[in-house]
């Protein structure tokens, strides 16, 4: 069975076209995704991706009714994610997503600290069986990557090759089906 690769979050229609035609994605999610940076204005008909904040805010976010994905709960200096949040996320069918765009922002020691936090996140998510999604979060087409290259980010979090491939295929499809069931 061939895998179908998805990129969950891009901010540009040009990226959707580039990803599906040139990079070999099955689907790049553009308009069917609702990205919520601040506040809690979720949309019932779309996949709601909520940007993470501190520990307190993250706990609040994953308890909201229409939350589907918690985005970037990783910081170089602090850990805005713990086992209790992972437990609630699993119960509420909320996945955790990491964007490549944020990873590329860091240099030097900050990058090392970010990798360390990512490894910590990976350990918790695997233990609590909470799904991880890797996405580009691209605002322009040169911020995108091929599916296999994007999946390799999961290796930093300690995922095996098979688990890493699931972060861009099965885990995204699961979120889609859960969303459709909720409707």
């Amino acid at each position, binding site marked *: 069975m061939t895998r179908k690769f998805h990129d969950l979050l891009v901010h540009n229609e040009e990226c959707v076209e580039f990803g599906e035609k040139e*990079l070999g994605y099955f689907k790049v999610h553009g308009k069917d995704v609702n990205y919520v940076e601040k506040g809690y204005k979720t949309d019932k008909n779309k996949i709601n991706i909520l940007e993470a904040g501190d520990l307190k805010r993250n706990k609040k976010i994953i308890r909201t009714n229409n939350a589907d994905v918690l985005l970037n709960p990783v910081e170089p200096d602090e850990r805005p994610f713990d086992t209790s949040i992972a437990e609630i996320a699993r119960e509420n069918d909320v996945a955790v997503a990491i964007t490549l765009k944020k990873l590329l922002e860091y240099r030097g020691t900050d990058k090392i600290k970010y990798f360390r936090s990512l490894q910590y996140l990976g350990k918790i998510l695997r233990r609590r069986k909470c799904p991880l999604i890797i996405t580009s979060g691209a605002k322009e*087409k*040169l911020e995108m*990557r*091929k599916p296999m*290259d994007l999946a390799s980010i999961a*290796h930093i979090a300690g995922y095996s090759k098979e688990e890493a491939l699931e972060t861009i295929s099965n885990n995204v499809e699961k979120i889609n089906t859960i969303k459709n069931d909720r409707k």
Partner: protein
Amino acid sequence: MNKKPFPSTLKEKNRYMLIKIHSNQKISRNQLIKEIWRSAFENLGALNISESGLWLMDFNEEEQKGILRTNNKKQQEVRIMLTLINNIGNKRAFISIEKVHGTLKKSRKQLKITEKEGK
């Protein structure tokens, strides 16, 4: 005195990655090499680079495609390192791995480079 031949079981298995550069401007071979080494030192470190046997074998500047050699055991690390490149010579660009081959001959066939040109 004749030296004993190197045992074949200890021989490293290489992988040849067919890479493609996506950018709005053309990237030269030197710029690419500089960026690969910079990213390798930043993300892998000297120890991992030495174990990976990283080397740019060929690069076609017109097609912006090339062949990168690495060890089979460090393939994933090299892939991560290439994914984390987003600038080459102050130009916005990214590197994608098109295919991985076990022999240089196959890789060159894909890139349409004859062995003489490669050397």
